[in-house]
């Protein structure tokens, strides 16, 4: 059962040049993208900077409206985890309020304290974290708080936009394992966006490779990595620098 269906989604941005900011052309950020995400899957969207993956993520979330094409979500209120732990939490809010915001906005504030405590357990942060402010935490801890915020409303679908790209490699592994753990415990479906092929391989079942606004290849992650069909995928894979063991 598909929880997300994208059909020929297009999003163009005008390019304005000159003093009078006249339209000089368009940037085809997303240029006809179609894919489906099955319930329970961890779907990877991989590509280099500027390929449109973040724009596509925002369109799936409803933050941006596509110029043409459609996005169908068989779920209400997806959640999101952003890349930069230093910008994704409101610096003026206490952790309790940050975590509670989703529930408050959906008028489900009953049992809030208990639910927050449960979330803190899952993300492995101490109970006294709730009275603190974001700046009192490290990058990895802040990302945990962002994850906590995302899971509190018990969403069925979470978009993860480069969730570990800003973190040190040891912390990356911790957070990725946490995301896997959560997926198991809460039965969430992920749209996992990243430029890092290694991370996507670790996390994802099916993947789509994006280049210049288009999907060039889709398929099972393991299969695509071992037997890439498209030349761009091949180029991406050959640029991965693994340590020579």
């Amino acid at each position: 059962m598909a929880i997300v269906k994208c059909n020929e989604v297009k999003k163009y941005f005008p390019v304005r040049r000159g003093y009078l900011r006249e339209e000089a052309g368009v940037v085809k950020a997303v240029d006809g993208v179609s894919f489906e995400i099955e319930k329970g899957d961890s779907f990877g969207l991989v590509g280099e900077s500027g390929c449109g993956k973040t724009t596509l993520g925002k369109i799936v979330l409803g933050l941006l409206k596509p110029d043409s094409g459609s996005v169908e979500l068989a779920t209400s209120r997806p959640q999101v985890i952003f890349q930069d732990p230093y910008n994704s939490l409101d610096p003026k809010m206490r952790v309790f309020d940050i975590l509670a915001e989703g529930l408050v906005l959906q008028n489900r504030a009953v049992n809030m304290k208990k639910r927050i405590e449960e979330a803190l357990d899952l993300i492995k942060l101490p109970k006294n974290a709730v009275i603190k402010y974001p700046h009192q935490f490290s990058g990895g801890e802040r990302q945990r708080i962002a994850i906590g915020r995302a899971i509190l409303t018990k969403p069925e679908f979470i978009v993860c936009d480069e969730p570990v790209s800003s973190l040190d490699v040891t912390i990356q592994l911790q957070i990725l394992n946490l995301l896997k753990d959560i997926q198991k415990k809460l039965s969430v479906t992920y749209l996992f966006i990243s430029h890092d092929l290694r991370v996507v391989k670790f996390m994802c079942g099916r993947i789509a490779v994006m280049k210049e606004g288009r999907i060039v290849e889709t398929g099972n992650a393991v299969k695509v990595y071992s037997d890439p069909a498209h030349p761009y995928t091949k180029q991406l894979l050959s640029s991965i620098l693994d340590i020579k063991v």
Partner: protein
Amino acid sequence: MKRLFKDKIALASLCFIAVILAFALFAPLIATYNPTSIDVRSVLSPPSHHHILGTDTLGRDIFSRIVYGSRISLSIGFIAVGIAVLIGIFFGSVAGYYGGKIDSMIMRLVDIMLCFPTFFLILAVIALLEPSIFNIMAVIGMTSWMGVARLIRAEVLTLKERDYVSASRVMGGSDAWIIWKHLIPNAIGPVMVNATLGVGGAILVESALSFLGIGVQPPTPSWGNILMDGKSTLGVAWWLTIFPGIFILLTVLAYNLLGDRLRDMLEPRIKG
């Protein structure tokens, strides 16, 4: 906060402002005489044992009038600035958040307001309406919100792109919710500086209006109208001019210095 206390000038300004605040709050306890009681025998007496800052043309004690006058100056200062800040936050956040035509319209309004020489605008309005304290507060407030609006708009323009705003939107946050809960609390920093300096400015405007006779009306004492009394007697009774003048000077200076130091404190943090 701690750094503010370490700065000697900021500390001195805060202390002086605290003194004036004490004057305003505890006026009946601090003043030596009733500010409106006329004493024909002591008309225009220089500073002495009985009247530490002298008396005016009706024998009223200057010190007591200044103490009670602080109530007027401070309340007009705070409330006028409060009104300006509220108006400024509203227009600035709406302009910055929505952009497009709304932003253009609001910014044109700001530009138009800035074209008026504010003081003359205030003069004109007060001349048309009656010079009540409320009117004065309202007019000063409604003519000095533009700086705040620009500051808030600039901050909101940057802040609305932050991921925590997007996250809130994804979770169902409405425009009003985002502006109120996320944008305004984060945008308000620079406004603190503007507001502090604004109090000094409002006090000056009130003093000027009262000095010209169209501000606070006698017998209610205000630093400005004590000065007005002193105008005609400058040669004979210097204390009528010097003392209220010094208080106006020191109070405005205190607010200006405090505002300056606040700005210095905020700036490096913004850069870093």
